[in-house]
């Protein structure tokens, strides 16, 4: 017990987490918005609290929808990137690829946002969206009209988010694949497996936990992204999006975009604080699950290492 109490530095993260939660709780004054808080109705009528409703539902749906879709895309792409840089590329190009992806991870999200807004949006509106509707229109979500405010909407936010989380998930997946003991890889090759068969039957299963942890951490990142999403998601209609082209909003981007109004309306301010508490809980849960996977990973690695 003394071991960790004795080191105040070790307590810092815990203190910070506690302080953040406490400040948010105090700022919200634990104001009870009633059961409608968990509902899907959101209508803010300034100065008329009784006519307003405060449901977080739409925002949560927007958050999980954009985060999940971008995660699916990002997982596929970063798995491909990680596999090629660890398994297929010769050392030098492999390192170069890692360097560039790490570099991408360091770019501020507002830069991705502005790029999405200025470059991706027109391309998306003119080319990508029509062809998606042609090809995948029969799939639920991919048919239907464009958003009435232009190219900005759910799918554009998904694309920007995908590009933003790929560097993180790729780096983590690469580490997971790299940590597969070389002996096992060679043992696979020695029974006459091709490199691809070794990827599929040795590397991926052995690295499974690390890969899951990468996916979850990417999910956490996507859930919490505010600035870039706010810039491209439209955010005008606070209703469940009828299709993927429609504008919607997420918890994080909503908080970000409503800050100025919140300074004028105390009720809205408190609401945003409580929204951020919900987001915090979601993020903590996702990260805890991710860490569980990482721990399992370490345990397997040690068992694999030890012979008798």
């Amino acid at each position: 017990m003394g071991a960790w109490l004795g080191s105040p530095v070790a307590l810092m993260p815990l203190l910070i987490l506690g302080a953040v939660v406490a400040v948010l709780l105090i700022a919200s004054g634990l104001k009870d918005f009633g059961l409608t808080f968990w509902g899907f109705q959101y209508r803010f009528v300034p100065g008329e609290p009784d006519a307003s409703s405060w449901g977080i539902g739409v925002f949560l749906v927007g958050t999980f929808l954009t985060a999940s879709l971008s995660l699916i895309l990002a997982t596929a792409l970063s798995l491909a990137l990680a596999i090629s840089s660890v398994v297929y590329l010769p050392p030098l190009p492999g390192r170069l690829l890692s360097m560039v992806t790490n570099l991408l991870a360091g770019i501020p999200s507002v830069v991705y946002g502005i790029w999405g807004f200025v470059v991706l949006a027109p391309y998306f509106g003119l080319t990508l969206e029509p062809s998606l509707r042609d090809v995948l229109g029969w799939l639920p979500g991919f048919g239907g009209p464009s958003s009435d405010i232009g190219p900005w909407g759910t799918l554009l936010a998904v694309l920007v988010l995908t590009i933003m989380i790929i560097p993180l998930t790729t780096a983590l997946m690469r580490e997971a694949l790299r940590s597969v003991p070389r002996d096992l890889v060679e043992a696979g090759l020695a029974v006459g497996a091709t490199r691809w068969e070794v990827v599929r039957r040795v590397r991926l299963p052995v690295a499974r936990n690390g890969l899951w942890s990468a996916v979850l951490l990417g999910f956490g990142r996507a859930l919490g992204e505010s600035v870039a999403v706010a810039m491209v998601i439209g955010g005008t209609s606070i209703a469940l999006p009828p299709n993927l082209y429609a504008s919607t909003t997420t918890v994080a981007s909503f908080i970000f975009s409503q800050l100025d109004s919140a300074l004028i309306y105390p009720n809205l301010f408190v609401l945003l604080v409580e929204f951020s508490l919900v987001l915090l809980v979601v993020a903590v849960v996702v990260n805890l699950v991710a860490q569980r996977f990482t721990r399992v990973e370490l345990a397997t690695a040690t068992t694999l290492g030890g012979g008798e």
Partner: protein
Amino acid sequence: MNERNDNLVSRGSSAGSPSRVCPKCGAPVAAVGGEAPLKCVRCGTPLSASLPRAATSPIAAASEDRGEIILAIDRLSVLARNKPLISDVNLHIPVGKVTAIIGPSGCGKTTLLRSMNRMVELHHLQVKGTVRYLGQDIYGAQVNPVLVRRKIGMVFQRPTVFPTSVFENVAFGLRLDGESEDTVEKAVVSSLRRTGLWDEVKDALDRPALTLSGGQQQRLCIARALAVSPRVLLMDEPTSSLDPAATQRVEDLIFELKSDYTVVIVTHNMQQAARVADLTAFMYQGRLVEFDTTKRVFEQPKEKLTENYITGRFG
């Protein structure tokens, strides 16, 4: 499964067949790189001498009388960034025998062994010279390294079991071919019997292989290698992580495997070489110093270096 296909070019049985077949038994006669065996590898029928005879070195020639050669290594050098790890090695390994490679640590035993099934390539090493498996140069431009490794299997210094069940570990190579469940099961059982592991694990086939003891894990790796029916088994210090009892079992197994497989074993334990090997090759600083019957290497070595090594004067 039963029929043996020594074609190293493609996984299918008919495609890429060698240009010649033995007139008597129909076995393929590979003429890769302009060199062909003088006798049919299967039935021993002399073949017409129209193909150029392979140039053989004195050491290689000396080993010709020890029986049919399954792996012929000639003028082999392996280099890492132009620095030779082994130089100019000539070694002809006869079929159905246990050949040991001994020598002080760092002399290139592992490198030599790993050049026999193209595992050296995984480390971006450069290979010069030839390694012929039943006459086919395994480094030939058309040869598929995956097929080389199926014919020439390998067991590593430490057990390399996969984190799956005992059964799936042995089935690993068979699954790659999409064999039927029935075939897989038969091959797994027979490989486990062959390695003497069957009685120990027959009630634990679904258990994680990592729960086996180190000695059992190593024999499981041998069973996994045998399951794809190789003809040569390369072993790199297979007992160095095992206790004496487990070592004994693996050595017994190596002795039994001789009847069906050719075994090449690297060891830095001279007693082990003396116990299991018919032939012994002594390496020193990247060169093959002496290759002869184990008895002669240990009792009347021709080279002073060999004598110094086996009498424990260095190493």
